[in-house]
């Protein structure tokens, strides 16, 4: 059909991604559950309106009752009636470093999750399956912490300026050179906030008259940056290269909507690992398409930097490609490096342009020095430049943990989305009551998980998302798996029918080895 050779001409390793279909009975029962809750939601709203029940959520003031109503849309209805019932699974306060084990403050609610009170007890040693701690650098002791505290005593914590004015420390220069060397690009720039890196730099790169082709399931920061830029945005189906190629062809052939002029720039926005699905982008195909249709690629490696690839350099190394093919490599320091912030890497002209024209560089406060030192130490550790093999061991441990955990969960019979090699493991729950029940049952068994429901996922596809870490030992994973097995039997979560559905974007035939199953 197209130039992508099926038998691995572009892919040097098998690409195993699966999204098992929702079983029909489960979908029907999920709708039944949501239907019952919606009916009760209407009943409660009626009672609140007619003052039979005390209204505890935000409403308009008496004088504003005749204005356009603020809280009548579906999101607010969902918030009041469905989210409030299971709210105790989110915003749990932790009181220790979020490493492999974490301490949590216990809280109870006496009025069905409208208010919480702390009992004063601290639950210690909860196995942490929810923090983005892929390489285990969230530690309170060790080389990173010592270096960071030395820098703290030398530079202090605050910078009190933006990068362009008086906030450009020598530590920032050192960090940027190091990050550029780590990624294999000419130059890099670091920002204080990962979300702001995306939302403030995409407007600097594209503007009106440009076209943005963005994946269906891109993160809110990419969507916000794309909308702020004023460019035309077109969405292609998630990880679907046929859809992307069709959009590219249409863009080149038809040009801009009314004037038919050619687009000034075409920018493809993709992520390395999509955190809600656990899927990895089909980078070789995207790069082949980008070269054929002469467009630019913006790769957001928030979750994949440090977590993929034989030496932790991200999804570009995972596929064995050259970093020069990706025009803008963006990533965050929050996930694998145990710090905060984001970076953009690319050609020197691009980064020099961004230093002057990016909103984040001009207006945002620069990164705090201890955070910068934490990143420098952790990057040196991963690269092996601190003289030990700790970094390499961690990357390998993460890969082993990922493979083991995913294999065991699939064998137990849960529906797991995503690629075999991604450390983000979504386990499907589907029914609304099971979202709350799963979170609570796992906490009772001393395991902390993140459950995700409606606004972040489609309404029937709610899930529990596990983030594996190199800090998890095999014993911890075995304990967690045993408890997940128990809770899965208790709540009847083992929906899988062990049927590997071929990916629908190309016809399945025996010669495609991307859809193999072991």
């Amino acid at each position, binding site marked *: 059909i197209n130039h992508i050779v099926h038998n691995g001409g572009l892919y040097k390793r098998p690409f195993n991604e699966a999204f098992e279909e929702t079983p029909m009975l489960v979908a029907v029962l999920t709708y039944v559950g949501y239907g019952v809750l919606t009916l009760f939601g209407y009943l409660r709203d009626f009672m609140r309106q007619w003052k039979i029940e005390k209204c505890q959520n935000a409403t308009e003031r008496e004088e504003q009752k005749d204005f356009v109503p603020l809280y009548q849309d579906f999101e607010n209805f969902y918030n009041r009636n469905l989210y409030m019932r*299971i709210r105790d699974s989110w915003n749990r306060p932790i009181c220790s470093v979020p490493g492999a084990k974490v301490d949590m403050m216990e809280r109870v609610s006496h009025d069905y999750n409208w208010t919480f009170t702390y009992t004063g007890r601290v639950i210690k040693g909860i196995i942490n399956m929810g923090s983005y701690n892929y390489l285990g650098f969230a530690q309170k002791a060790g080389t990173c912490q010592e270096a960071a505290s030395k820098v703290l005593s030398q530079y202090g914590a605050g910078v009190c300026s933006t990068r362009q004015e008086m906030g450009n420390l020598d530590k920032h220069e050192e960090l940027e050179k190091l990050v550029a060397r780590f990624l294999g690009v000419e130059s890099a720039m670091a920002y204080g906030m990962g979300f702001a890196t995306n939302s403030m730099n995409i407007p600097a790169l594209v503007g009106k008259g440009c076209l943005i082709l963005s994946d269906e399931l891109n993160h809110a920061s990419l969507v916000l940056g794309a909308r702020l830029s004023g460019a035309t945005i077109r969405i292609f189906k998630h990880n679907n290269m046929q859809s992307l190629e069709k959009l590219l062809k249409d863009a080149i052939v038809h040009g801009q909507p009314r004037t038919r002029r050619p687009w000034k720039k075409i920018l493809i926005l993709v992520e390395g690992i999509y955190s809600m699905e656990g899927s990895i982008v089909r980078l070789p195909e995207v790069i082949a398409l980008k070269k054929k249709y002469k467009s630019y690629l913006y790769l957001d490696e928030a979750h994949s930097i440090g977590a993929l690839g034989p030496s932790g350099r991200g999804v570009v190394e995972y596929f064995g490609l050259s970093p020069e093919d990706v025009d803008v490599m963006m990533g965050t320091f929050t996930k694998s490096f145990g710090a905060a912030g984001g970076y953009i890497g690319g050609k020197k002209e691009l980064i020099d342009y961004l230093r002057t024209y990016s909103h984040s560089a001009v207006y945002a406060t620069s990164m705090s020095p201890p955070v910068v030192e934490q990143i420098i130490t952790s990057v040196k550790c991963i690269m092996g430049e601190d003289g030990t093999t700790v970094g390499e061991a961690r990357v390998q441990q993460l890969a082993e943990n990922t493979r083991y955990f995913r294999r065991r969960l699939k064998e137990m019979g849960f529906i797991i989305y995503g690629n075999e090699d991604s450390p983000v493991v979504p386990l499907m729950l589907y029914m609304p009551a099971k979202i709350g029940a799963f979170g609570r049952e796992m906490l009772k068994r001393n395991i902390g998980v993140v459950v995700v429901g409606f606004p972040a996922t489609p309404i029937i596809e709610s899930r529990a998302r596990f983030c594996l870490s190199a800090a998890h030992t095999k014993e911890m994973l075995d304990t967690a798996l045993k408890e997940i097995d128990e809770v899965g039997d208790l709540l*009847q979560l083992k929906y899988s029918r062990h049927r590997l559905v071929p990916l629908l974007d190309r016809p399945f035939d025996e010669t495609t080895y991307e859809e193999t199953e072991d």
Partner: protein
Amino acid sequence: MDIKSMKNYLYWLYCQFELITCSCLMEPWEKLLFYTFNITMLVTVLYTAYIFVPVHISMAFQFFLHLFGNQHENTVSIVK
């Protein structure tokens, strides 16, 4: 022992029902309302079935008997 495992199994089934219809998330008065409504509907359906189903079945039985049984009656009358 059998009774105990039976009771556990029934309790587990009840928990599954609660999870599917989200009644484990409801406040006690909502649960009361929901169960009252459900049990009332169930009792009504069962009562209606108890009254009407035997009548319908016997009518259907007589209809089919009439269809195939007419030949029998004819032979009986000739013999008479």
